[in-house]
Structures are given as structure tokens and as C-alpha cells.
């Protein structure tokens, strides 16, 4: 199989909705990183989060095993620190091997759920 993806990705438009409607965790408002590692090596991924009015925070470290996908909610990241909800942020995703990155937002602030999924921007 061909190696696919990039090693650096950017997501500029993050803002995790504060409120949720419906049973949790299925209906928790969230933003999610979906990572595909189609290669033969585990991907060591580092996420750096940028804010409007404070220094970047990170890296948040996750591993995506070879030939696997992993979906990670930004809501659940706590190391090095929990991300604030309802606050503008952007992030850079760096990996030691090529990966493909998608960004999803699920907003259940109202009972009529809103779902959005976009590809992250491949930097390199």
C-alpha cells in the first residue's frame, strides 16, 4: 500500500460547544480529531493548541497504531491540561509518520443536533 497523508496538519477553527442536550457521552457536544494511520509504523502524534490571548499549550501526545484509526475528543484531553470549552482555539498536529487528519464538531446545544466534518489543512 502507498504511504498516504502528511506529517503536519493545521486546524484553525476550533471552539468546543459548552452545552449539551441528551444522554452523555453519546450526545455530549464535542470536537473530535479523527486520525488515519494507514502505514506500517505506529504514529506518535503531538498536538499543540493555540489560543487568542495566551501562549500555546502542548504537546498533547497520542499514539495511533499502524493500520489503525483513532478518534479523540478534544473535550477529553487533560494532559498537559484540560482545554477550555466555549473558547476559540486552533491546533497543529505533528506526527512522526504520514497520517490523515479530519476534524469533526458535534453541537448538541439544542436538541436539533448539528454535525460538521472537515479535512484538516495538510501543511507539509
Amino acid at each position: 500500500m502507498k504511504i498516504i497523508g502528511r506529517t503536519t496538519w493545521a486546524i484553525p477553527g476550533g471552539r468546543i460547544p459548552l452545552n449539551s442536550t441528551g444522554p452523555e457521552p453519546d450526545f455530549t457536544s464535542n470536537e473530535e480529531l479523527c486520525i488515519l494511520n494507514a502505514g506500517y509504523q505506529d504514529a506518535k502524534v503531538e498536538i499543540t493548541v493555540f489560543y487568542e490571548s495566551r501562549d500555546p499549550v502542548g504537546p498533547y501526545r497520542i499514539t495511533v497504531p499502524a493500520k489503525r484509526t483513532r478518534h479523540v475528543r478534544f473535550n477529553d484531553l487533560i494532559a498537559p491540561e484540560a482545554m477550555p470549552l466555549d473558547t476559540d482555539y486552533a491546533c497543529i498536529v505533528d506526527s512522526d509518520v504520514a497520517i490523515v487528519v479530519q476534524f469533526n464538531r458535534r453541537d448538541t446545544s439544542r436538541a436539533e443536533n448539528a454535525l460538521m466534518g472537515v479535512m484538516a489543512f495538510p501543511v507539509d
Partner: protein
Amino acid sequence: MQQEWTNWSGSLRFTPGSTETPSDEEELAQLVCRAASDGRTVRAAGAGHSSSPLVQTEDILVSMERFRGVEHHDPGAREVTVKSGMMLREANRAFLDLGLALENLGDVDLQSLVGAIGTGTHGTGRRFHILSHHLIGGRLVNGRGEIVEFPMERDSEFVLAARVALGALGIFTALRLRLVPAFRLHRREWCAHIEDCLADLDRLIEENRNFDFYWYPRSDEAKLRTLNFPEEDQKTTIPYARCVKEMSGWSGEVIPRQRELRFDEIEFFFPAEAGPRCFREVRKRVKARHRKSVGWRVLYRTIAADNAYLSGAHSRDSVTISLHQNNTLPYDEYFRDIEHIFRDYGGRPHWGKKHYLKAGDLRPLYPMWDRFLELRQRMDPEGVFLNPYLSELLGCGRTAPLHA
């Protein structure tokens, strides 16, 4: 120039006037004697894992790092006397070498043994006490610089005060402990929804030697931890949960875990029967008001009643609830707000963690409060071991002139 002292989480920082590292009991006694006659104050530092300002001083800070090792072992009585500067992890290994163990441990073993005892540190398990319950005697240097021995056989009342003493009775130099035979445990961690866990809580607490859970406020999921004797753990089932991790080993190896991520914490003890209601109210409040900035967990544990004067579990089987916040994020507003709920349920604070109570709030919570203060006055009449925080906490001040 004096070095700044920092605790584990980084939320407590101060620069002592001087730092002394006595090599033995006599040297420590002379140091305290001099301090008393000069009108100075002395505080002893442990490992710095606590985040309350019990240790904070602008005067003399004593390091007990040279007080290490086992001083005496009575195999028949399962008694061990250790020097007071031992770290908890080091003590666990030394006890295991003797075929002995503490009956229970907390989440981490980064504390000094004397610090864990002095602040009423505990693990989880409805049949198990705070760590201090093992203390049956020892020696300390009192505020006059005298070396005082306090065997349980001669002065049981003093031992009950000494079990949770906040460093206010003197500086311990030796701790005599009655232990249990070393034992192995099987540890499992499970993921489940918090509502399923709460519906099954009584059974989980009853059927497991050690049980606790962490609730994650941004998903409403919980991490459940069970520890049982390996030969008895085969029957443990939690049908609605999935087991995500398991391991077996000696108690000192599997109860405490590594904690790389640093945090600040507030924890209160409640009557056991009030625990579930209190937790539900905390959960509701966190979701309604604090979820924007709080992503980390809330911990629920159980502890058996004891009779140490300042123990959080004094005279009542207890539940503890603790809040965690990353040490790089603000905690004050969150902890203060939830403390109101803790107080509504008759909560008593963990002495080594953050809380905002003062002597007037605390006295009604501890039936033996006044007796503890009488003993404290007897041991330290001039307030050599008081710092401003302890004076406010206990409601007692220095009687000697402050050092100029």
C-alpha cells in the same frame, strides 16, 4: 542565599529563613531548644506532596532526610519502628523485606511516611482506616527541645492525638507502627457510565476489598478500580463495565500508581451514608457551572471510622470526595464553590489538600478538638511549631515574642 521551596503541584512556594538538616535526634533537639530560647519558629518538611501551607515558614525549615531506615523490628508483634524521614515508597519496600505491609495505601506513594501520617492520608476500602491507624508510638522533639517517647501502652490518649498531628505537637523522629503480614492484590480498572456505577455502588463497595471510582465531568463516564486478593478476585464481575487494565503484585506495588501529571486537589470526608447524595449534588454543580474550565476527574473513596482526634474519619465510617484540577489551570473559584456543598454534608477537610476552613469552622466538626489543643499547648507552650497558617487553622497563637 536561601532556595525557594516548592511543593509537588507548584501551588505552594516560599523561601525559608534557613534550612537545617540535622543528622540525629540530639542535634534536632538542640536546634529546637535554641529556636525556642531565641523566640524563633521551626517547621519540618516532608516530601512536599501536600498542597496546604502546613510547612510554610519564613523562619527555620527542617529537613529530616537524614532520618532514614528501620530502627527496630519485633516480628512476633508485627511491630516496626522507623526513623521519621523515610519516604512512603521506601518504607513500603522496607516493610516488605520484613514480610510486612501497611493494610492500605493511597493513590500515590510520593509522600514522606510522617507527612502521610500527620495529615490523615488514606486509601479506599470500607474496612480500612487512614494510614495513621498503624501508629502505636514513637518519639518526637517537643517545643522545649525535649525528646519525648509516647508508647501506646503508657499514653494512648497522646497517640490518638499524634496520629493526625499536622506537625503541631512536635517533630517526630521515630514512628512505631503495628503492621499486617505482606499481601498480594489483583488490581483491575474498568470503564462504565457513571449512572450504572452509582446504581451498583453499594455492591461494589461491599464486595471488593478496595473500590473507588473517578468521574469524568465532560463525558459522564467513570473509571472504576477494584482490588482484591488474587485468589478471591475470579468472581468479581461488573457486567456493564469493560475491564481496560489489570495487574497483580504486592500491595505496595499495585495500590499506588505513577502520577506524572501534576494537579491541585481538594478533598473532604463525609458520613458514609451521605456520600452518594453529596456526590450527585457535586456532579450536578460541576456540570452546570464548572465544565467550561474543568475537564479532570472527581474521585470517590470509602474509609473506616477511627478514633484519632483530628482524623477526617473520626467516629464515623466515611466517604471522601475529591476534586482535581490541572496545576496550570485556576482552581480557586472551583474549589471554593464546591466546598459549600461539602460543608452542607458535614464535610471535614483533608489536611494535606486545599481547603478554606478556619478554626471556627473546624472546631464543631471534631469532638476531640479542644483536647488536641490542650495536648498541643502542653507539648509546645511557646508556639515554636506554629506558622501563621497553623495559628489560624487551630485558633492558637504564639506566646513568645517573634524573632526580630
